[in-house]
């Protein structure tokens, strides 16, 4: 049983990846088009649906519409999908 942290100003607790499953579930189950992507290069923040995507059968290169920097690349190998993050500062759930 893990201990609760001591409150907002208490010391950080060191646990393992299982501990963030609940928080990340909200992000990972969100439809990708509404996930807000923040560009690490220019700082622009926008729903993924608005990004520029160059796509072919194997890969999708996702670029910032503001500065054209590659945000991330999606590679497909048969049924497997690989995400390579390039210039993403943050991904967040959409505003309520």
């Amino acid at each position, binding site marked *: 049983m893990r201990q609760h942290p001591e409150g907002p100003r208490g010391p950080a607790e060191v646990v393992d990846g299982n501990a963030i499953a609940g928080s990340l579930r909200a992000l990972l189950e969100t*439809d990708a088009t509404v996930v807000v992507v923040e560009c690490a290069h220019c700082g622009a923040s926008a*729903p993924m649906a608005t990004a520029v995507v160059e796509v072919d*059968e194997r890969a999708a290169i996702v670029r910032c519409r503001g500065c054209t920097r590659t945000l991330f690349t999606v590679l497909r190998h048969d049924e497997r999908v690989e995400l390579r993050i390039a210039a993403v500062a943050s991904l967040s759930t959409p505003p309520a």
Partner: protein
Amino acid sequence: MSAPRWMPARVAEAVPSTAHARVLRLAVPGWPGNLPGQHLDVRLTAEDGYQAERSYSIASSGPGELVELAVDEVVDGEVSHYLVRVVEPGDAMEVKGPLGAYFVWDAGDPSPVQLVAGGSGIVPLLAMLRARVAGGVGGPFRLLYSVRSAADAMYRDEIDALASGDIEVTWAYTRAAPDGWGGRVGRLGPTEVAAATWPPDQKPLTYVCGPTGFVEAAADALVAAGHDPLRVRTERFGGR
């Protein structure tokens, strides 16, 4: 909601829409229903195992296991060629969806809605129009639909029949106008967009869909006219 997975689908109906487009109704057992404006992925598998996937907007919405697509044949497009020219009722494919929570219309939002379609960009916008009419809720709608000629308009008769009261329809012709047409023929410019859309002070929710160049031009014209960029949602079908 669980992640969408590939589901078997069968062509229930295939109906010509224009000389280069077809309406397909797919029977998808277990389809969970979809919101107006969503899309799905189609996967075709050849006998030799070769697979091809493409995304298509859904013209229908709501519950039910019959999903309507309208596919325009793209020059050199292998999947669109197959769907428009080759596939027949009874044929099998796979679909994954519904996808997309960004380009959807919420029937509970009373805002005026502006739809701007270029060519086959009408498909997700028609789903919104149909939902508006069927549900009887939501704000007033305006549609600006740009086509090369009347014969190139998908769902032309249905759209003309929908136009009344809370639904205003403006046609724009880029190459040839029908007989008796009093308006101008040519690409939409900022003047034409402004004349056929809600003024910015009405704070409409705007959905623009079509080829990339069309969407960029229309969205730029709307933002330059004073519309809030966050309320101008776009979906690009690619191409120029």
